[in-house]
């Protein structure tokens, strides 16, 4: 264990400028020598990274159980699609709308349930995810195209050119990913970010310190959900076909695992998680029928070996390790 910790301590110096520049360079240059399939895999990795970062705000920073995050992803995607199909709005211009719609639903959903204890919040979010999926499948208000979903959505276009090739989508996504990282880091270090972490650690104490825990939790939900909506729009632009599968429970589970397995509460953790949950399985297609089992085994083993995730934020690590030591020393 100690050697891993040592590695982690060295890796934590990621905050340094060299690392950051390195990261940006790598992400810009990486797809160039690769074929379209691998570029698409990178694109997909990036989308899940954005989703992971958005969920990290809710689950990682604020410690709120959200197992229905995919619903907001889907809501963002459908908003973009509908605005484009019915009103002809160019895809890139629909982005703000999807963010707002997703954030709004985030507010609607979270407002009445924030007082619930963790496991219950978990169930409610699962239920919400299913309600959204079923409503989409049942073609609610005749808008959503049923199980078939919607198609024929325009590609995003820049300077009059529609972006078709995977590489353009990748760079478009990358712009948003980098923006997301910057924003999330800012949030992490802001008063709001610290408030989130206090709420996660001990809500009662936070309340006693004068933090409006309800408002803080609401903001986590709103921001996190809105961001997921953004990812949904990017998805719509690339695939031009969307279906209710976007809101599947499995999607929410993957996002949740990205955050927790990768390392709760930390940005590098989200990337580690995305690589583990999305990129690696994609590259290991030869397992085919047993991929689900493999995923399950990974989840169990990971949690047993390292419940705080591979690259957690130090705070979370202390929280979890501290709890364990306390518990173990008392038995």
């Amino acid at each position: 264990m100690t050697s891993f910790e040592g590695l982690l301590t060295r890796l934590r110096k990621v905050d340094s400028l060299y690392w950051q520049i390195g990261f940006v360079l790598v992400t810009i240059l990486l797809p160039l020598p690769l074929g379209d399939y691998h570029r698409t895999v990178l694109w997909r990795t990036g989308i899940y990274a954005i989703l992971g970062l958005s969920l990290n705000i809710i689950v990682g920073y604020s410690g709120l159980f959200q197992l229905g995050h995919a619903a907001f992803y889907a809501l963002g995607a459908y908003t973009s699609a509908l605005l484009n199909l019915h009103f002809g709005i160019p895809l890139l211009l629909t982005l703000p709308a999807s963010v707002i719609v997703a954030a709004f639903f985030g507010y609607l959903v979270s407002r009445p349930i924030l007082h619930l204890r963790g496991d219950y919040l978990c169930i409610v979010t699962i239920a919400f995810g299913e309600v959204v999926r079923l409503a989409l499948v049942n073609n609610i208000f005749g808008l959503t195209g049923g199980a078939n979903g919607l198609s024929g959505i325009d590609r995003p276009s820049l300077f009059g050119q529609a972006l078709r090739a995977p590489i353009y989508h990748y760079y478009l996504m990358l712009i948003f990913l980098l923006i997301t990282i910057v924003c999330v880091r800012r949030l992490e270090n802001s008063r709001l970010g610290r408030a989130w972490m206090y709420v996660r650690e001990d809500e009662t104490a936070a309340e006693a310190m004068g933090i409006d825990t309800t408002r803080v939790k609401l903001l986590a939900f709103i921001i996190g959900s809105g961001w997921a909506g953004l990812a949904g729009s990017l998805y719509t632009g690339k695939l031009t076909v969307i279906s209710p599968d976007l809101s599947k429970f499995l999607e929410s589970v993957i996002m949740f695992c990205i955050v927790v397995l990768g390392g709760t509460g930390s940005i590098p953790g989200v990337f580690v998680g995305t690589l583990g949950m999305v990129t690696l399985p994609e590259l290991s297609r030869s397992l085919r029928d047993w991929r689900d089992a493999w995923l399950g085994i990974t989840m169990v083993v990971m949690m047993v070996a390292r419940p705080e995730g591979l690259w957690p934020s130090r705070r979370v690590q202390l929280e979890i390790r501290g709890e364990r030591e306390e518990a173990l020393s008392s038995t």
Partner: protein
Amino acid sequence: MQFTQQMINGITIGAFYSLVALGYTMVYGVLKLINFAHGDLFMWGAYLGLTGLNILLILLTQLSGWAILPVVVIVMITVALVGVLVERVAYRPLRTAGRLAPVISALGVAFILESLARNIYGASWKTYPNGLTPSGGFTLPGGGRVSTMQVVVVVVSFLLMGALYLFVQRTRIGTAMRAVSLNHDVSRLMGIDVNRIIAIVFLIGPGLGGVAGMIVALYYGSFDFTLGWVFGLKAFIAAILGGIGNIPGAMIGGMLLGIIEAQAAGNISPQWKDVIAYVILILILIFRPTGLLGERVAEKL
């Protein structure tokens, strides 16, 4: 007439939900963990029952209804053992690891169980051998039709639930379970071997779940590997509806959910019935998170 029939339909479905809900509620009671794998254990009960019956069929070339009994016992024991194994491997190490990790572990176990079932048994629907369940039925004066099998199922469910309730209320182990649900540390101080009690809970809960799986499969006749997920989620809603951690609550919650679902499917629309069930869940948690009979859920000083 329709109303009566829908009530009958609802009670039947409800009995199933109640049975499965028991397993959830027991585990949640002692561990405060939502055992996502429970639905899949239930599904495995259905598959193992099928294998058991097929083996008997080969050995005896002909089966009577009574063949079910030994198979049920074996299924119950097997699934119970799997349950204990799961607890030991995937949940026990995480008891002190925060709230997020056990959820992922539970989901992981669920994936493993489902994948195993799909790979071992194949993706197509499986049918139980014919002629094992009583057929025929009778018509109520109000006009609804009740099949003999339905009566059997509901009676058996209630008997099982009653037995469990008595066990928890009247025996020492049961009392120990209730103690552990309240507080692990204090229970330990009182001399209760908490690990052993939890293991017992994981014997009974999944065991019941496995039996429920076999009963459901016998009743409907056919199933596939998606059985676990939907039933699991519904049963969980039932448990919450009744008040999680509370056995009579699971029974009532299950019945209520079944009846509401049947009425909704019949009178509103079958495709929206699941949405209605989920919405009810959400509403209950918002306005009365204690459920009908259960414990406090919100953290408020």
